[in-house]
């Protein structure tokens, strides 16, 4: 199918880009340009619609690769490179300080500790009871609203 680009439609564009884009208006076309006028009218309308759809993003796209760069002077470039690398050094120092805490050693006889008697049934029951009390206490925490939260200032 391809895109028909009618010459008149792109000239009344009110927006001007900040950085003039040399690639603007270069919407891909094919050989069907010349036959645009001879197509039946609804076909041209469709083509015109498609063209407008394409033009909108084309106007909004800023092609970074096409922008002609200002060009840095050698000393400016070196200065910036130095600045960035010192900044990176500082950051990498602070990052490497965040080491995870090493595992403490709980015992020098792990097999003995693990083979020892299991927690007794009575102890487990006691712990469960204590946990139940704690849960019930926490669930009873509530806000006791004594006063209005929002008041009017009374200016005499």
């Amino acid at each position, binding site marked *: 199918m391809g895109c028909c680009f009618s010459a008149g439609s792109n000239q009344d564009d009110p927006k001007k880009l900040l950085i003039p884009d040399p690639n603007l208006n270069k919407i891909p076309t094919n050989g069907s340009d010349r036959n645009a006028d001879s197509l039946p009218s609804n076909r041209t309308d469709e083509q015109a619609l498609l063209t407008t759809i394409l033009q909108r993003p084309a106007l909004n796209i800023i092609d970074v690769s096409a922008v002609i760069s200002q060009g840095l002077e050698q000393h400016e470039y070196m200065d910036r490179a130095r600045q960035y690398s010192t900044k990176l050094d500082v950051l990498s120092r602070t990052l490497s300080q965040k080491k995870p805490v090493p595992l403490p050693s*709980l015992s020098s006889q792990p097999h003995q500790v*693990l083979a020892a008697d299991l927690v007794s049934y009575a102890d487990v029951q006691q712990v469960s009871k204590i946990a139940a009390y704690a849960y019930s206490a926490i669930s009873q925490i509530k806000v006791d609203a004594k006063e209005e939260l929002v008041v009017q200032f009374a200016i005499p």
Partner: protein
Amino acid sequence: MTTALTQGLERIPDQIGYLVISEEGVLASAGELENDELTAGVIMQMVRTACRFRLHGTAEPPFKRMSVMFEDYVYAVTISGQKVFVVKRQNNQREPVIV
């Protein structure tokens, strides 16, 4: 190296599986915990959290062994020499019968 670690664990009474875990990963596993990286991960998280507890401003964690108790089995966990030892044991304890 692993036999030194695991020999003692094998001989624990009524053990049905064990894991030896380091910071890098599972060093050894057997029985019902064989290749169980999922359980290893969960237990590592639990034990790291438990190690942060302190009693009355003491410097070390206040425990030697952490037990995760289920109805029929228990995971007993301890740490020694930068390695976490986990043993799954049968929990045969029931309510004492009063005769």
